[in-house]
């Protein structure tokens, strides 16, 4: 397997549902290729950075405005 082929299939490395045969082929390439190991590892870190970002509260007053607009829509419903 070439690095360019590995990159095309990289989604499968990051996906735990990948079938065993493909996973074995990809892991075999990773075992021999330091560059692809770094790419996979830094992609994992990239995903983690964004996934682990703490959710911030919505701006002050926004929920109140939404609830108010919904109440108005509710009153107008036939």
């Amino acid at each position: 397997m070439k690095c360019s082929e590995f990159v095309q299939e990289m989604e499968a490395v990051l996906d735990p549902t990948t079938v065993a045969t493909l996973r074995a082929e990809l892991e075999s390439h990773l075992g021999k290729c330091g560059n692809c190991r770094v790419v996979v590892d830094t992609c994992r870190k990239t995903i983690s950075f964004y996934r682990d970002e703490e959710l911030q509260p919505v701006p002050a007053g926004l929920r109140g405005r939404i609830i108010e607009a919904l109440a108005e829509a509710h009153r107008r419903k036939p």
Partner: protein
Amino acid sequence: MAGESLNVQVPTDDEMTLVLAAQGGDLGAFERLVERYERRLFRLAERITGNSEDAEDVLQEAFLKAYSKLAQFQRNSRFYTWIVRITVNEALMRLRKQKTGRTVSLDEDIQTEDGLIPREVEDWHPNPEQQYTQHEVKGILQRAIQSLALPYRAVFQLRDVEELSTEETAEALDISVPAVKSRLLRARLQLREKLNRYFKKHHEAVSV
């Protein structure tokens, strides 16, 4: 990891109960759904529009539209996926209004090799917080994702951040499953490349 279902982070056990109550006219039940999803949907709207003022309007319009169309919601899909799709559409509509004459679409043909072959391959510092303040890291992440083309940004946000499945992401964005997979790969590689400048091991901290 990346293939896990959204169910891990967003409890769905009583989502359908709330939806059914809201469909029966219980406004309080719908307000519970607002409380549950407002932060995630606000972040999504902010990532698509690029600013919080537009995201506020998008969120309000999305919830209003969802409420008015609640009777049309088909219970064979999840409410969260449905309202994500409404929020994405509202955000795109807002962008189109602002960029008259310019195309704002998730269907752009963006199949190029750009960003597919990693240019720089170097491991990252194990703890970027030692290089940058928390505030600086947040700014780096924000600028990097906002610099992605919209079709990539939207797929990355739904698939990798909100943890929708590939199929749910395709449904929410109204694109094919292969398009989700292809764009996700490119989004991840491009983001990695952008962050590499700041987080690679053998480099002094870049001014941010």
